C-alpha cells in the first residue's frame, strides 16, 4: 500500500491493522511522534490526517488511503510554524516527550479556531497529557500563536 507522509509517498508492506504510530516510528523512522498509552488517551502520538488531529496509535494503517499525513517533522522545515515559534517564545517544553503531540494538536486546533478563548483551548487540549505540567505555558503559547493577549 501507499502512504503519503510529509509530502513524500512511501510504498509499504505492513499488515493493515498496524497502527500508523508504529509505521511512522519503526518502519519510516519518523520518531518525533511518540508512544504514550496505546489507547488514544494521552495524545503523545498526535499527527495530522488531512489537517485533522488524529491519534496515530488508534489509526490502523489499512484505514488510511489517499489522505495526507503530516507529522511533527513535516509541520515546518525550520521550526517556523507559528505554534512552534510560540512554543519557543513561551519556553514550553520540560522533558519534551509529549510536546510533538501537543504542538500537532494545537496547530490543528488553531487552523480551525484562530481566536480561541481559554475554555476553548482547555477543551481542545484536554486530550493531551503532560506529566511535567507545562499546561500553564501551553495555554499562553496557544494564545500567543493566535495573536491574542497573553494571560
Amino acid at each position, binding site marked *: 500500500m501507499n502512504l503519503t507522509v510529509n509530502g513524500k509517498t512511501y510504498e509499504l508492506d505492513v*499488515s493493515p491493522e*498496524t*497502527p500508523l504510530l*508504529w509505521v511512522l*516510528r*519503526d*518502519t519510516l*523512522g*519518523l*520518531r*518525533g*511522534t*511518540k*508512544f*504514550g*498509552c*496505546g*489507547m488514544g*488517551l*494521552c495524545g*503523545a502520538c498526535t499527527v495530522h490526517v488531512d489537517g485533522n488531529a488524529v491519534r496515530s496509535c488508534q489509526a490502523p494503517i489499512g484505514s488510511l488511503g489517499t489522505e495526507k499525513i503530516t*507529522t*511533527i*517533522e513535516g*509541520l*515546518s522545515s525550520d*521550526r517556523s510554524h507559528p505554534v*512552534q515559534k510560540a*512554543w*519557543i517564545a513561551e*519556553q*514550553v*517544553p*520540560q*522533558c*519534551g*516527550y*509529549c*510536546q*510533538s503531540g501537543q*504542538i500537532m494538536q494545537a496547530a490543528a486546533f488553531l487552523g480551525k479556531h484562530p481566536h480561541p478563548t481559554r475554555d476553548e*483551548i*482547555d*477543551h481542545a*487540549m*484536554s*486530550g*493531551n*497529557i*503532560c*506529566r*511535567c*505540567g*507545562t*499546561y*500553564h*505555558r*501551553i*495555554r499562553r503559547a496557544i494564545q500567543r500563536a493566535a495573536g491574542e493577549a497573553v*494571560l
Partner: protein
Amino acid sequence: MIAQAQVSRREFLKTGAATGAALVVGFYLPERSHGQDSQNLQTKTFSPNAWVRITPDNQVTVLVERPEMGQGQRTVEIVLLAEELEVDFSGIRIEQAPTIPDIYKSLSTGGSNGTRSGWDNVRKAGAQAREGLVRAAAQLWRVDKKECRAENGAVIHVPTGRHFAYGELVEAASRLPEISADAVPLKEAKDFRLIGKPVARVDTPSKVDGSAQFGIDVNVPDMLHAVIARCPHFGGKLVSFDGADAKRTPGVRAVFPVAPLGPLDICSYGIRNLNTAGGVAVVAESTWAAIQGRKALRLNWEKGPGAGETTASLRRELERQAIAPPTFISVDRGDTPKALDDAAKQIEATYELPFAAHATMEPMNTTAHVRDGEIELWSPTQWANVIQDEIATLSGLPKSKVIVHMTLSGGSFGRRAQWDYAAEAWQVAREVKQPVQLLWTREDDIQHDFYREYAYHRLTGGLDKQGKLTAWSHRVACTPIRPVFDSPESLQDPQHSAEVDGADPPYSCPNVYVDFAPVHSVVPRAWWRSVEGSFLAFGVECFIDELAHAAGNDPYEFRMSLLQDDGKSGSEQGLNKRKFRDVLQLAAEKADWGKPLPPGCGRGIACYWSFGSYIAHVAEVSTERDGALRVRRVVSVVNCGTAVNPDGVRAMTEGAINFALTPVLGGEITIKDGAVEQSNFHDYPVLRIDQSPVIEVHIVPSTERPAGMGEPGVPPLAPAVANAVFAARGIRVRRLPIGTRLLKKW
C-alpha cells in the same frame, strides 16, 4: 550518592589529528585506571576528567554529566560554565559525558541535586579554561596577564585593545603548565552576567521539532523490539506458559521466560534489590509485532505471598499502626503527653494518602546489545553510573566493558532512579545476541511502578486558653520505601527505614513528639518526586490549619506567629524562620489573602522547606454543588537561594504544582490480590490542562548558594488545596484524592 569531582589540577592538551588541535580543560585525577577509555577526547597524553573543549574554529563544546529529564539541567550547566568562561552561551555545543565514572563523577542526579552539585565544579571548569586562555594571550603578547581580560569568547589586551579569539589561543594554551583550579577565583555575584537572568533552554528547539532523541528513539542497526509479560501479582511468579500462538504471530522472532531479579551485590553500592517481576519476553521485528505476540501468550501465574493484599487490608493495618506502639521515635522534646493532658483544647486528626504512580510520559525502555565480552546499553536513566555497575555485576564483565549511553528522559520524577528496566533489557539481549529495545507499554508502567508509599498520619495537638500551641504529636504510619531496594542490614537501623525526616514541624511548640510505625506491603515503593515531603507536608500543613481554626486564628497569621525566631521549634538545624516568614508573607500578599471570595470558593495556604528551598503556596479553589472541585489559581513564592535560571525555577515550580495535583484530584493506585487494579490513563487519571490552575511564581531575590528546585514545589501543594477546600466549604479532607462525594455534602 552524588559524588563531587575532586578538582586537583588542570591540564591543557591537544587532541589527536582527527579533530585538529583543541584546548581541553580537564581535571586530572590520581586514579587513571579508565583514562584511555575516553572515547570523546581522543587524547594520547593523559586521562582527563574533561568538561570543556575549544577548537581553533572557536567552537566551545561542553560535556554535561547529569541527566536531562526535563528539569533544565543542561541549560543550568551551560549557564554556569559560560558565566566563568566568558563566552556566548548560545553557541556552546553540548555532549553527554560518557559513562567513565572514574573521570565523570556526576553521571546521575537525585534529591533535587543537579544545580547544587554543579554550582562549584562547573563554574571552576569554566574559570580554569578562562585563566588558561588569558595566560596564553598574555604570553603571546609578552604582557602582564593583569592587563588582559576575557570577554565574549576573546581575550583583550586592555591598554592596546588588541584581542585574540579563543580559537587562536588553543595551541598556546595547550602548552601552558598546570593551573590549580582552586587558585582561580570565581566571580562574585555582583559580576554575574548570565547567572540569575532568565535564559532560553538549550534543548527547546529540539523539543518543538521532534528531533530530540529519547531512549525510545534509539535506533541501532539490526535492532529488534521486545516486551515482557510480567507477573501482575507482586511477589508472585510464572508457573507455566504457552507461547505457541505468540511465536506464530507475524514478525515475532523469539519467546522465552525471563527470571525475576532480586537483591544484587552491586560492588560500589552494596546490596540493592533490583525488584523485577519476571515473566515471558516476546522479541519481534517491530514494537507492534512484539505487543501482538504478547497478547497471544497463555500465562499461568502464582499469586504468591501478596495474594490477600488489598487497599482495604492495607488501610486496616495502617489504622491499627496509627495507634500501635512506635518502631522509631524521631522527636521527643518536652513532655508531650502531659502537655496534651493539660491543654485547654485538644485536637486530633488523621490523613490518608494512597499509593501514587509516576506515569512518566516516556514509558520505561532500554536498548541493549550483548556482544562477546562487551555490553552496550542506551537507557533513559537518572543513574548511568549505577546502571553500568549493575550490568557489570549481573554479567560478570568488568565495568569498563559495559558502555552506557544516557539518553534524554521523557520525565522521571524519581522513577528512573530504579534499575529494573535496564536489567530486564540485558536479560532479553543476552538471549537474542542482537541489539534489542525493551519497551514497557503504559499498562506495564502503571502496574509495575515503584509507587509513592501509602501513608497514614495521626496528629494530636494541644492549645492553651489563649489559643497558643502547647503540644504536637505526630504518628507517621506508612509502607516505607527502604525495604524495597535497600540491604537487609541497613534496615536494622530503624531510623534508616523510617520516613520521618522533615516531620518535625517548623512551628514553635514547647512539647513535640514524632514517631513512626511501618506497615508491610508487597507493593514496590520508592522515590516519588519530593519523597516523604509529599506526604509529611500534607499531615503537618493540614493539621496546623486545623489548629489555627481551633484557636480562632487566621491560618496565615497563626503560622506567622509560630515562626518567630524564639528558638522553640525543633527543626532549627539549618532552618531559617525569616525565610519562611518572607515566603508566606509574599504569598499571602500576592494571592490577596483575606479578600472575600464568592460562596463555594476559598483560599488555602501551606509552606514547606525541602532540599534547601522555602516555598509557600496559596491555592484558590471553587466548588460546585455537584461535588466538582476546581483549583483555579495557585500563587507560589520560592526562596531557592540563587536562581541560576529564574525561568527554569518558574518552570520547575509550575510543573511541581501540576504534578502534585494528580493525587489530589484524580489518580489513585489501588491493590487487589497483591496486584495494581489500574492499567492506563482511563483508570489512573492524571492531571489534564482543563484541571490545571493559573499559576503565578514569585522568586525571592538571593545571592546565596542555589538550593534544589526539582521537588520542593510538590509538598505544600496538596495541603494548600485541602485547606482551601475547608475555607470554601468547611469540609476537612481526610483522604486523597478529593472525590466528588466529599464535596456533595453542601
